[in-house]
C-alpha cells in the first residue's frame, strides 16, 4: 500500500469511527489546507488522480464550510448556473457513491430502510437519503433537480427539502422530452425563472458579465475534455489508477469553474505524455523496455499493446472494493472510454446563457428516447474502435436497465458484444462478487475468440 492509499485508509477509518458531520467538516478543513493538500497531492500516482482529489476535496470543503449558500443538485444539471449565482453545489447522488467507497453504505442504507425506503429502490438515492437523515450532509439552502435520466432524485430531494423546511426553495426543472427550438425556449424560460427566484431569495442579482465569464470557463473545460477524449481514441497505456468513472463530480458539478478547466488540461497533458510513451513502445524505442516501470506503471510490450482489447463502459461502476478492473487489466482489456465521459453538448453561447444551458441539458443522450443514447453509443463505438461493451446494470436503475435489451441488440447489429453485468454500485451485499467474476470471465472468453 502506497502513502496515498495509507492516508486515504486512515481518513476513512477516522470518518467511520467518528461518523458525524462536524468530524467530516474538520477533516475536510485539515486536508484542504494548502500545504497539506499539496503534500497529499504529491503522493498520488498520477497527476489526473491528484487534481481530481484536490478539486473534489475543495468543493466538498466549501459546501461543508457553510460560508456560502449551498444547493443540493441532481446529477445532470447545468452547474454553471450554481457557480454564476455564487452557490456551492453539493451532489447527494455522487456523494452517496462515496458512502460505498468509504464503507459507510451499510449504515446509510440501514437508516434509509428504517424510514421506509424499500430495498427495491436505487442504492445511490437510498444511501444519500440515509446520510441526510443521519445528518452527515451539509444543510442546504436550496434544492434543485431535473427529470433527466431518473425519477428517484426528484422524490428523495423533495423529502430532503421537507426535512430542512425549504420546500419553497425546491425546484424541479422540467426538461422537455424532445429537443426542439420550442423545447429550448421552454427550458430556458424555466432556468431564467428559477435563477431569478434564487437570486431574489439570496437578496442579489445575477451579474450577466460574471455569468458570461462562467460560461466561458465552461467552454474552456469542454475544449480540454474533448481534447482528452480525442487522445483516448488512440491511448492504451494509461497512468496508474486512472479510471474515467471517477471524474463524475468535476465533469458535472464543477462545470463552469477554473478548477474543471485546469483538471482536464492536466489530464490532457498527462495522457499525452503516456501516448508518447505508447508510441515509443510501438516504434521500438529502447528507452521504454517492456517490464520496466514508467511513473508507477509497468511498461507493456509492443505486442501486448497491439493485442489489447478495447472496452466501452456504460453506466457506472461499483464504488466499493472489487476486482472487475483488475480482472480486465490482467486479461489485457482496457476501458478506452466511458459513456459518462462523453461531451455531448455544443459550445455554449455566453451571450445567451440560459438558452445555452437549455441546449446543454437537452443534448444529453440520456434525456428523451433511448434512440438518443443508442446513437451516442454507436458513435462512440465507431470512434474508439471498441471490441466489446460492458453495461453495469446497477440495481434499481430502471432508466438504464430498462433499455439494456435495445442497447444489446443495437450493438449486436454492428457485431459488438455487450455484457450486461447485474450488480449494485454501492451495496456490496447486493452484488455477488463470484457471479460478477464468472460472467466477466465468460465475456472475456467470448471476445477473445472473436479476434
Amino acid at each position, binding site marked *: 500500500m502506497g502513502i496515498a492509499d495509507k492516508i486515504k485508509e486512515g481518513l476513512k477509518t477516522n470518518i467511520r469511527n467518528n461518523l458525524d458531520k462536524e468530524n467530516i467538516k474538520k477533516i475536510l478543513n485539515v486536508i484542504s489546507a494548502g500545504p497539506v493538500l499539496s503534500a497529499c497531492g504529491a503522493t498520488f500516482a498520477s497527476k489526473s488522480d491528484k487534481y481530481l482529489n484536490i478539486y473534489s476535496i475543495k468543493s466538498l470543503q466549501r459546501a461543508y464550510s457553510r460560508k456560502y449558500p449551498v444547493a443540493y443538485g441532481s446529477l445532470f444539471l447545468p452547474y454553471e448556473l450554481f457557480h454564476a449565482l455564487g452557490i456551492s453545489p453539493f451532489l447527494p447522488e455522487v456523494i452517496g457513491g462515496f458512502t460505498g467507497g468509504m464503507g459507510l453504505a451499510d449504515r446509510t442504507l440501514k437508516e434509509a430502510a428504517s*424510514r*421506509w*425506503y*424499500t430495498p*427495491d*429502490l*436505487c442504492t445511490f*438515492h437510498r444511501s444519500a*437519503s440515509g446520510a441526510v437523515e443521519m445528518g452527515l450532509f451539509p444543510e442546504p439552502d436550496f434544492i434543485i433537480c431535473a*427529470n433527466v435520466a*431518473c*425519477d*428517484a432524485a*426528484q*422524490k*428523495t430531494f*423533495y*423529502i430532503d427539502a*421537507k426535512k430542512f423546511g425549504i*420546500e419553497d426553495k425546491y425546484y*424541479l426543472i*422540467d426538461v*422537455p*422530452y*424532445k429537443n426542439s427550438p*420550442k423545447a429550448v425556449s*421552454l427550458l430556458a*424560460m*424555466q432556468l431564467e*425563472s428559477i435563477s431569478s427566484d434564487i437570486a431574489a431569495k439570496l437578496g442579489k442579482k445575477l451579474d450577466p458579465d460574471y455569468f458570461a465569464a462562467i460560461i466561458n470557463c465552461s467552454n474552456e473545460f469542454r475544449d480540454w475534455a474533448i481534447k482528452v477524449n480525442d487522445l483516448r481514441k488512440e491511448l492504451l497505456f494509461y497512468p496508474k489508477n486512472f479510471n474515467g468513472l471517477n471524474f463524475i463530480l468535476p465533469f458535472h458539478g464543477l462545470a463552469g469553474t477554473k478548477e474543471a478547466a485546469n483538471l482536464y488540461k492536466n489530464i490532457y497533458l498527462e495522457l499525452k505524455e503516456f501516448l508518447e510513451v505508447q508510441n515509443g513502445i510501438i516504434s521500438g524505442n529502447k528507452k521504454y523496455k517492456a517490464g520496466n516501470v514508467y511513473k508507477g506503471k509497468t511498461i507493456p510490450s509492443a505486442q501486448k499493446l497491439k493485442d489489447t482489447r478495447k472496452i466501452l463502459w456504460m453506466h457506472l461502476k461499483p464504488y466499493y472494493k472489487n476486482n472487475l478492473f483488475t480482472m480486465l487489466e490482467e486479461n489485457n482489456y482496457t476501458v478506452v472510454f466511458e459513456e459518462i465521459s462523453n461531451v455531448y453538448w455544443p459550445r455554449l453561447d455566453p451571450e445567451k446563457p440560459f438558452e445555452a444551458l437549455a441546449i446543454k441539458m437537452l443534448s444529453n443522450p440520456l434525456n428523451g*428516447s*433511448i*434512440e438518443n443514447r443508442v446513437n451516442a453509443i454507436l458513435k462512440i463505438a465507431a470512434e474508439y474502435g471498441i471490441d466489446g461493451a460492458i453495461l453495469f*446494470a446497477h*440495481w*434499481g436503475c*430502471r*432508466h438504464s*436497465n*430498462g*433499455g*439494456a*435489451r*435495445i442497447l444489446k*441488440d443495437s450493438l449486436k447489429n454492428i457485431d459488438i458484444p455487450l455484457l450486461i453485468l*447485474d450488480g449494485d454500485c454501492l451495496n456490496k451485499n447486493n452484488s455477488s462478487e463470484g457471479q460478477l467474476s464468472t460472467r466477466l470471465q465468460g465475456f472475456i472468453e467470448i471476445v477473445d475468440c472473436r479476434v
Partner: protein
Amino acid sequence: MEQAIDDKPASGITIKGKIGWLCTYTPEEIIIASGFQPSRITGNLKAFRSEGYFPINFCPFIKSSMEDLLAAASDFKGVIFTNSCDGMRRFYDNCRAYIPDLPAFMLDVPHNKNSIAIEHFVSSLKEMLIFLEETGGNKPGIAELEDAIRICSEKRMLLKKLSNRFRDNQASVGVRNYYNILERSMTEDTSAFIKYLRGYLDGPVQDLKSSKEPALNGVMVIGNYINEDRLWSIFDELECTIAAEDMCNSSRYFENITLPSSTAGIIERSGEKDSFSVLLTDIAVRQLYKPQCMRMADLGAKISEIAKNIEKHGIKGVVFLSQKFCDNTLLFYPLLREKLAAMNVPSLFIEIEHNNISAGQIKTRLQAFLEII
C-alpha cells in the same frame, strides 16, 4: 356482496379503431375528437415474452402491458405513452423497437403546475393531434373537440356519481364490481359505456349488506394502477369499507370535471388567442390540475390532498398499495407515512406484483390491520 355486470353494452368500436393509452394524464378528448376510441391498456396478460425485454426488477404492470401489446398489437391503431416514469419511457422505447408496426407516441407531460408547464403541455397536445392525424385520424375542428370534451365530462360526472354511491353505500356496489366498472370505463367505447352507466345508476340501489349499521373503520386506499380482482374481492370478503380513494384507476382518472377556480389566472396568462388553442389549454389545465399522481413535482400538494380527504371522510387507516418497483409511488411513501404518523392515522403498506398477487398473505395482513384500527 358484489353485483354482477350482466348488461354489457353493445360493442361500439368506432370506424377508425382503437388508440391505446396508459396514463390518466392522457386526454381522451383528443383521441375521441380525432375519430378514435380511447382504450386503456390494462396489462391483462401475465408477463412471459415481455420478460425478455425488461430486467427482473422492473414494473410488473408495464411487463404485462407489453405482453398485451405483443399479443394483440393489431387491435390498436396506435398507442399514446406518457413520460410518467422511467419505466414508461423504456416501455415506449421497447414497444417502438420490438413492435415496430404499431404507431407509438410519447406525450410529454410536465411535472410542474404553472404557466410554463401549461404552455409545455399544450405544445405536446398539438403534437399528439398531429400523430393521431398521421395514424389515420381526423383533423378535428372546434365542434369535434367541444363534442369530445362534453362526452368525457359526462363520463367523468357519471363516474363521480358512481364513486359517491360506492362511498355512501359500498355494499350496494361491491368493491370488486366497482373497480371492474371503472376498468370498463377506461377500456370500452365511451358512448356505449355512458349509456350503460347511466342505466346502472338509474337502476334500483341494492343494499346487499345484511347489517344496516353505519360504516365503521373506513379506510382510504392510495396507490397506483391496481386492478387485481382477487385483491378487491378480499376487501369485499372482509367487509372493509373504503371511505376514500386515491388511485390511478379511480379518482385520479375521473376527478376534476370542471376547472378549479384557482387556475383561472393561469389560463388568462397563457395568451392563447384562437378558440381551438383555448380549448387545448383548457384540457391541459384540467389534466395538470386534476388530483395529482406521485410523479408530479409538488409532493407537498399531494400530501395536502390526501390529508384533506382523510379529515373529510374521518379515515381510520390508510391502505397504501404500490406496484412493485414503482419508484414514484415507493418514494412517496416515506413522506406520506411521516404525515400519517403526525395525524395519528395508521397505515398498511402492501406491494403488489401485477397479475401475481399473494392473496392469502394480503388477506391476513389486511385482516390484522382492520382489527387494529
